[in-house]
């Protein structure tokens, strides 16, 4: 008897699915939205494989294999579309495309200003250690 039960895997799968959903709703980078959708698929795949083991039946694993296939197709198409969108706007920000929404919705405006970026650390100033070696006045011949 396995010491870890079915519901433990289902709980983890549910947590991954919800994290992916929150990521898809909040992140504004197109590529990260795509990765969040992939994370939701990971949660679902975990559920399916756990049920496959629970029932002693390979159907769940086969279905997960198909999910991985469809995810690969999705990755190809999504990255191509993202590349198209990037060519138009020169940015991955999804809010630049908000005129595609319903016309009566108010546009989202970034209100709170971002804190200024921290200044780059100054390069360390190295003190000279020891006396400067003697430089030869001119290159001597190696011949």
């Amino acid at each position: 008897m396995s010491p870890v039960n079915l519901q433990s895997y289902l709980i983890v799968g549910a947590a991954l699915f919800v994290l992916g959903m929150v990521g898809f709703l909040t992140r504004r980078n197109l590529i990260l939205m795509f990765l969040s959708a992939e994370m939701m698929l990971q949660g679902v795949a975990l559920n399916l494989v756990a049920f496959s083991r629970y029932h002693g039946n390979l159907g769940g694993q086969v279905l997960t294999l198909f999910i991985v296939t469809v995810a690969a197709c999705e990755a190809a198409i999504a990255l191509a579309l993202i590349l198209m969108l990037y060519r138009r706007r020169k940015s991955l920000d999804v809010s630049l495309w908000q005129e595609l929404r319903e016309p009566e919705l108010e546009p989202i405006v970034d209100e709170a200003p971002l804190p200024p970026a921290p200044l780059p650390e100054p390069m360390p100033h190295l003190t000279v250690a020891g006396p400067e070696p003697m430089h030869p006045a001119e290159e001597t011949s190696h011949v």
Partner: protein
Amino acid sequence: MVFFLDITDASRGAALLTLVRDFWPLWATAALGCAGIYGLLPQARTSKPIWAGFGVAAAILLAGLWFVRQDGVWPEQVLFYAFSFLAVVGGILMLAQSNPVHAALSFALVVLNVCGLFLLLAAPFLMAATLIIYAGAIVVTFLFVIMLAQQAGLASADARSREPFLASLAGFVLLGALWCALDKTYNLTPVLRELDLVASAKSLDEVAKLWSEPAAKPGARTLPALDRLKNALPRELEYDVPELEKAWAKQDLPALTKAAARLRDQAAKLKLGALKPRDRDAPVEAPVTAQNVAGLGRTLFTRYLVPVELAGVLLLVATIGAIAIAGRRGEGLR
């Protein structure tokens, strides 16, 4: 203001309240986690969200300690905890990182740990396939991130979130509902406690008080509490509930306690949700563990042959589509 949930119907509101009251530790943990995630999401702020990080960590610990069932300490269990902890932490880091490159790396952490969980679930082929396919996909994505996002430095959009509060709220509702459903299905502890009380009852009044519904007057033939019990029990035990009902209808205390004790013992013996043991000698159709690759191949090419062909066609279509969409030269990337 329009609420999505219609609780004008009183019974529906009461059902909702019962759900929240019965499973309040689950809801509290989900609320703690989602509040922490709300704090961690990239936003315009001045200080680092340390308290939100502590909140999320506390929620993960509580969920791991309380809701993940365990029977003793096994290596598999240690591995399960390690993999699932790292997977969830990777997911949270992916939400919290404002640098897209770091977020993509966190997603790689999630995939690696889910692959570890696949291995624990006796799916080695799937682990290898997911690892190879996702590793390839993530490397490509990673190159995209570096190529596109890093050309103009960090964008201000990455340091902000879209509707962080509403998204965390939606996550809280979904997580709480999913965990509630799982706990309701797989956790027999409240049912066992109730049956224990019935089995040790000294008088019929005690049972009537326990099932304190208006219909629980001595002599009532059916009880809402018994229906609830029947719903809470797994299907394997449903056939023993009529015995309890019959004893209650006859108002026969010894028979009632005996039936309750028997039901309790059976429910305690039932390993609900236990995964199948490793079985090396079982025929190919039955086992998952032994001969995983051979069994998977046989299943794929006999029972799921048409879907396999369709998946191949889908891959071809997706490849052609991707080339048609992205392959236009002339405009150039810049």
